[in-house]
């Protein structure tokens, strides 16, 4: 199985803090990886590095064999954990913007996703509720036929109904020639979508592996393992 993402000994240091230290992990092509951990564990930094928005201090990161840069940005579809859209744009204009800059943007699929999410292209981003902005952003990100989807807290602002709409869209659009890395606090709701899981704590990988093997080995759900891992860490 070929690896779409190869990360080895990745370290990211800021002046006062170390966000990631010696992270090594691979994402096989066609796999969905869950990036788990409490706030401040380095998930967002790792995802921003994959998206080419943060430069690594040391170590190597390869996305489809290339170091993050202009070429990888063309094949990585990134969903940040905050609203990255200009408020003056309408949903449709945001679609035009994506279509203009990303050659893998599929307008037809965008329209389909807007229909599924009950959004219309005339709505202004600035006038949408938090959950609707979230759905618009997800529609944009999933409308790209990207090689790698990097989704930071994609279910954060969604109600249970919207969450199931999004999960359905995710399964319906998933292809075997792409991979997905996603972080979430709602482990129980999405753990059935993970092929692989990585538990991060204070910038280090504390546990990683195939979700099904972890379930078999520990006789526990990923959520239980999450509680165990971080409960343990906290009392240490």
């Amino acid at each position: 199985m070929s690896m779409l993402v190869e990360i080895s000994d990745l370290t990211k240091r800021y002046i006062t803090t170390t966000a990631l230290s010696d992270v090594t992990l691979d994402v096989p092509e066609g796999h969905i990886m869950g990036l788990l951990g409490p706030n401040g564990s380095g998930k967002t930094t790792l995802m921003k590095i994959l998206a080419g928005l943060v430069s690594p201090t040391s170590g190597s990161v390869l996305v489809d064999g290339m170091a993050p840069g202009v070429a990888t940005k063309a094949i990585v579809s990134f969903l940040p954990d905050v609203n990255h859209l200009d408020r003056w744009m309408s949903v449709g204009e945001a679609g035009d913007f994506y279509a203009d800059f990303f050659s893998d943007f599929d307008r037809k699929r965008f329209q389909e996703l807007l229909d599924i999410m009950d959004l219309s292209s005339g709505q202004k981003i600035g006038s949408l509720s938090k959950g609707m902005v979230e759905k618009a952003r997800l529609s944009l990100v999933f409308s790209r036929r990207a090689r790698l989807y990097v989704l930071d807290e994609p279910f954060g602002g969604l109600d249970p109904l919207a969450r199931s709409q999004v999960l359905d869209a995710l399964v319906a659009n998933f292809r075997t020639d792409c991979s997905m890395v996603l972080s979430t606090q709602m482990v129980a709701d999405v753990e059935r979508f993970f092929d692989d899981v990585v538990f991060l704590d204070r910038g280090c990988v504390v546990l990683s592996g195939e979700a099904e093997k972890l379930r078999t080995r520990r006789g526990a759900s990923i959520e239980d393992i999450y509680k165990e891992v971080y409960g343990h860490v906290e009392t240490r």
Partner: protein
Amino acid sequence: MWKLVRYQLRGRRLLYTIGLITMCALTLYQATRFIGMRDNPVQSAPISMGVPLTMAFFWVLFYAAMTVINIVTYTQDLYGDTGYLVFSLPLRGAEVLGSRIVLLVFDTLVTLLGGMTSVIVLACLAPGLSQQVRPYVGRFLLTGDYWVMCLGVLAVIVSFMAIMFFGVTFGKTLTNSKKHLGSVFSALVVIAVLWASAQLGTLLEMRLFEGVHLTLSPWRNLPFLGLGTQPVQFPLVSPSLFVMLGVLAFAMTSWLMDRKLNL
């Protein structure tokens, strides 16, 4: 890059519309006052002259506002949430930065042309002044020296902004803090660069390029201005040095965006 410029312009369409309508309204207001006073040529030329000059001052204010907006939007892209959109596009840093410079040049040209139009229109209508001004408008617009001066000023402004952008970007590569620690730092960088540039410029002018000046007479086709028609000596060495620094700042900022960004 041009696509990015187009989207930025679209984002600012409301701002431009409001700004330009305000400026037009001010010009029209003054123009109607002048037209109303035409039968009453009591007002002397110097007082009439004051109105177009006030108008020019308003245009400077307009430009200052646009410049502040340019710096603020750039800072927001680096420190705010929209940067995640701009910097996840498959564009090189030079293209992102270039689009900002193009916008800046656009703002400058709009201000220059708009300002010139309103000042000339008002001068042509000003009681006691219009008779003197009208015959010279065409010739003034063809004064090469005037346009060279404008070009020089534009180059210096763009360089200054490039250095500002460099400061902001450099601050952001050092820290990922959202608390604008970087902006404080970037201000320091800008001040340091400006100071160094001024010192070096003076030094070069005194030691190496003594007496190198650019002598222009931008107002030579406006004889009614009196003393203003004398040729003006513009410094050449310091501004050239400054423009070179601007180019360097552009190159370094692009490099930082490509390699050292911490959004």
